[in-house]
């Protein structure tokens, strides 16, 4: 019975991963309202999240359509797609995620003990990490003009974050999806032949370790998402190759779920929508963490296989269509999805965020600055509860 729920969760994860804007949180809400209870619910949800963490990168890479967990990967993923390396981009995120799954499973018990003993200190540390990240965004700009632009973007994105608090999908679609697609419309009129033979450099895989650290940050610091963690880690690196970045993002995305689950069991506190859904639906026994980790482990294998297979299919479809048409179709798709999921307020948020995203691109400043729309409100939240 549990394996049946795992299979259903995997199917739901593939669907949720392929549809931009359909987050596991949306399904989690339905699950909370359902009469289902026990290990089956946990199996379904954990399987869903794990598989979605792999498949999520397909729309980000092939359509430039971001999700809450992958928007930082849109630019590097799409860049590789334009070089005919779309399948490789997916293989890199998959490889990063697989390393994180293997190491994450082993580290989960240690993480569980650590989080049980240090939860209060971590909460106090969170605003300092966020302030440091924002400061580094500005300082890392080389010119005074660049610093002023960075400050402006932080204020503008932060204000949008406050103004459109429940509109994460329209905001990220604007910053990282529509803005980028509009900007590259004139450059992408050619048909892109996607390379079939993939070779992943083993040296790129080392960055999965940084990704695991990022996943731990996301799991212990509420309000910090996978992309924010990627951005913070990125600030401490001198150079960031596209391949290594995708490996890291894949690792963050999946290890986040392993560690969030350990956090739920240790502190009874949910760090994301998926964990919130299973918080009141599972039984807490000495084996819950073990079974949950194993379910996520084998679901990761299914997620990896699905992502690679779907990437090949997506590449074939892409080769048959002109990217300009595909880009326009993607913009229309994002507008439709925002209208469906977020309504009129979502469309307003989408317009403002697209404008800011385009500004960032034309000024050739860091796109990660747009993450301030998530960081600034989170920072104020922490300052409010701590002061």
């Amino acid at each position, binding site marked *: 019975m549990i*394996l049946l729920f795992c299979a259903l969760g995997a199917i739901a994860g593939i669907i949720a991963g392929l549809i931009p804007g359909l987050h596991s949180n949306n399904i989690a809400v339905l699950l909370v309202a359902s009469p289902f209870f026990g290990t089956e619910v946990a199996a379904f949800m954990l399987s869903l999240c794990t598989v979605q963490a792999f498949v999520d990168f397909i729309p980000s890479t092939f359509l430039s359509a971001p999700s809450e967990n992958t928007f930082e990967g849109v630019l590097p993923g799409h860049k590789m797609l334009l070089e005919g390396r779309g399948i490789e981009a997916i293989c890199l995120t998959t490889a990063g995620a697989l390393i994180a799954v293997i190491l994450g499973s082993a580290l989960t018990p240690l993480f569980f003990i650590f989080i049980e003993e240090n939860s209060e200190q971590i909460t106090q540390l969170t605003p300092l990490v966020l302030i440091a990240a924002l400061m580094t965004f500005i300082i890392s700009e080389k010119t005074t003009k660049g610093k002023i632009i960075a400050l402006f973007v932080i204020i503008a994105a932060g204000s949008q974050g406050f103004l459109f608090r429940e509109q994460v999908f329209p905001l990220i679609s604007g910053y990282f999806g529509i803005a980028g697609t509009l900007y590259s419309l004139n450059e992408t009129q050619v048909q892109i032949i996607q390379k079939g033979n993939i070779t992943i450099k083993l040296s790129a895989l080392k960055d999965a370790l940084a990704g695991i650290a990022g996943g731990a940050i996301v799991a212990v610091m509420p309000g910090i998402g996978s992309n924010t963690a990627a951005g913070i880690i990125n600030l401490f690196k001198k150079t960031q190759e596209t391949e290594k970045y995708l490996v890291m993002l894949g690792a963050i995305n999946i290890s986040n779920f392993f560690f969030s689950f350990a956090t739920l069991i240790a502190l009874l506190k949910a760090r994301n929508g998926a964990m919130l859904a299973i918080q009141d639906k599972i039984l807490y*026994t000495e084996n819950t963490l073990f079974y949950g980790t194993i379910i996520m482990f084998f679901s990761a294998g299914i997620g990896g296989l699905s992502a690679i297979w779907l990437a090949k299919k997506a590449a074939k479809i892409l080769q048959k269509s002109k990217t300009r048409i595909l880009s326009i179709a993607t913009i229309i798709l994002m507008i439709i999805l925002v209208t469906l999921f977020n309504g009129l307020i979502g469309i307003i948020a989408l317009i403002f965020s697209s404008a800011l995203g385009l500004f960032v691109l034309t000024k050739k400043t860091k796109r990660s600055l747009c993450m301030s729309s998530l960081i600034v409100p989170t920072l104020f939240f922490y300052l409010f509860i701590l002061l």
Partner: protein
Amino acid sequence: MDEKTLSKICLAITIIGLIIFILTYQPEFEEKTISELLSKDNSKGILFGRIEHIIQNYPTTIFTLNDGNEILIYYPKKTTLEKGQFVEVYAENKIEDSNLITPSKNKKQKELFAQKVIEK
């Protein structure tokens, strides 16, 4: 490493994970009676019965359940349970949590800790 190797690793992870799960998984909560649960410390089980009395609903819930035998149950959440309702209780006979409700002097009073109570 190419994508075929990556796919093989994925397949291996799926198979290894499934084997570990199938070999180790044991349902921890099985249907039991109150007397079965009380006979062994730290045992767990799903009880089905009727609520005889509600002692409190808020901030935690304490009630007596009858499945032929009667037992006091502590559930650490507020509920809207009512007397006479049939419920399914995911209960534990925890040593460390014994006497959560009753004074320590009254050690003869048996009680169980509920992880979940589902109205039927």
